């Protein structure tokens, strides 16, 4: 099944495979286009290569087979990465953590200050510049982590199960905040999760993955209206559809 890579694809994967040293195939023959402006979720059970795919897209690992085309220059400026853990530097306060990407690219503290303040206010943390990660709740640390990923104004935001370690309440809140963030920044998001509800709520497109070797088995598009989406019949129907896709994937 060959798909056309439209002019709006930010990243295209063609027949991509990834094999690690122990000759375990983490991914095999993956075709995928990441289209500008979409919210794409990679959904699947553990070991299906979701995280591997994010690492390949970010250039943190190299593909073993096939090709991966990025249609933008300067990967460091164009990609923001949010890990499963907040991954903050414990010795640095909130400002310095968010400042880090700009600092690594040679910006001075003073010239970076407006961008840092803006990123922090985007995630609802304006005014907590001086706090240390240790002093923040799990949800707030994750917000700082997202602010750090946004501070370069990336075109592509990669998120690897960012809310998996949070409690349900913080998670629902951050889901809504993420959708608002996407509206405000216009970033394209690739989001990894193993929660059916989260993927249904957030995504415009869901790629269902299966393990052994990791591959994409189904793609589901969601263009239902956002208004009261979580309570709508469309949401329930989408969850069911995703769930069926997953079951199908596990049976193969």
């Amino acid at each position: 099944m060959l798909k056309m890579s439209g002019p709006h694809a930010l990243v295209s994967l063609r027949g991509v495979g990834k094999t690690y040293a122990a000759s375990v195939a983490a991914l095999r023959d993956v075709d995928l286009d990441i289209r500008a402006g979409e919210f794409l979720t990679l959904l699947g059970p553990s070991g299906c290569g979701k995280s591997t795919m994010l690492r390949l897209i970010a250039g943190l690992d190299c593909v073993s087979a096939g090709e991966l085309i990025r249609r933008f220059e300067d990967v460091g400026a164009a990609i923001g990465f949010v890990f499963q853990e907040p991954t903050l530097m414990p010795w640095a306060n909130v400002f310095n953590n968010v400042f880090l990407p700009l600092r690594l690219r040679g910006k001075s503290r003073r010239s970076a200050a407006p961008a840092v303040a803006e990123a922090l206010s985007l995630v609802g943390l304006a005014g907590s510049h001086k706090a240390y990660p240790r002093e923040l709740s799990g949800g707030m640390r994750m917000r700082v982590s997202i602010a750090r990923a946004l501070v370069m104004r990336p075109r592509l935001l990669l998120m690897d199960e960012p809310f998996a370690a949070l409690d349900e309440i913080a998670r629902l809140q951050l889901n809504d905040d993420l959708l608002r963030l996407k509206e405000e920044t216009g970033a394209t998001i690739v989001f990894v999760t193993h929660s059916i509800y989260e993927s249904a709520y957030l995504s415009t497109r869901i790629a269902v993955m299966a393990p052994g070797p990791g591959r994409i088995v189904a793609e589901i598009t969601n263009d239902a209206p956002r208004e009261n989406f979580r309570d709508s019949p469309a949401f329930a129907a989408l969850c069911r559809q995703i769930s069926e896709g997953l079951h199908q994937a596990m049976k193969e």
Partner: protein
Amino acid sequence: MTLVIKTQGWLRQFLPPALVLAAALGLWEAIVRLYAIPPYILPAPSLVLATLMSDRAILFPALGVTLGTTLEALALAIIGGVALAVLFAQSKWVERALLPVAIVLQVTPIIAIAPLLLIYLDARAAVLACAFLIAFFPILSNTALGLASVDHNLVDLFALYRASRWRTLLLLRAPAALPFFLGGLRIGGGLALIGAIAAELAAGAAGKGAGLAFRIVEAGYRLNVPRMFAALFLVSLAGIAIFASLSALSAYLLGRWHESVLKR
């Protein structure tokens, strides 16, 4: 009332050990007086204190010598240990080549190396070398461990933003290694003093550059037991001072972020 509340925390921390110390010294003094033990067998604490004052022209310069050697050795151990740890972090090959040498130097008791060093070096340099050798290893191994114990995701993040090796070292590995380094420094500080004392004992150097350990040996030959106690008191005071100041440095540097310092 306010005074009581304010001093309560301070009292709780220092009162018990102070009471125990005072009781022990009192008991010691009482036993010496009660049984009229002669000072060449066991001097009373009051006599030790008096000797400390009367012999200050001999003891305090000796303290200065020992403390000077110790701090000099510690400074060299910090420079050498950190530099080598950074080198290890940059190249596995260097680590494989040099780590065994460092381990051999560490596991060989310093007191056994001292006589050899005394043949090749003058007394002062030999004492310095011994103190350096013994303080060097904990600083090296702890710092190397710290530089390697960095959150892998943060390493990835630095890679994503195309940070150079040097900046990754400076902005990520160095701060991550700081608590480890400070732990090694606290051990190394105490060991440097032990190394200096051990080497002074082996050297037995007299004259102007004589340290506290030599004064203990010398007083021993003369059966001047009160002076031995007074010198011993200064040695342990030096050890306490080194440990306390390195702990304070550690608390200051790790201040707000590290688990080891934060109060629950």
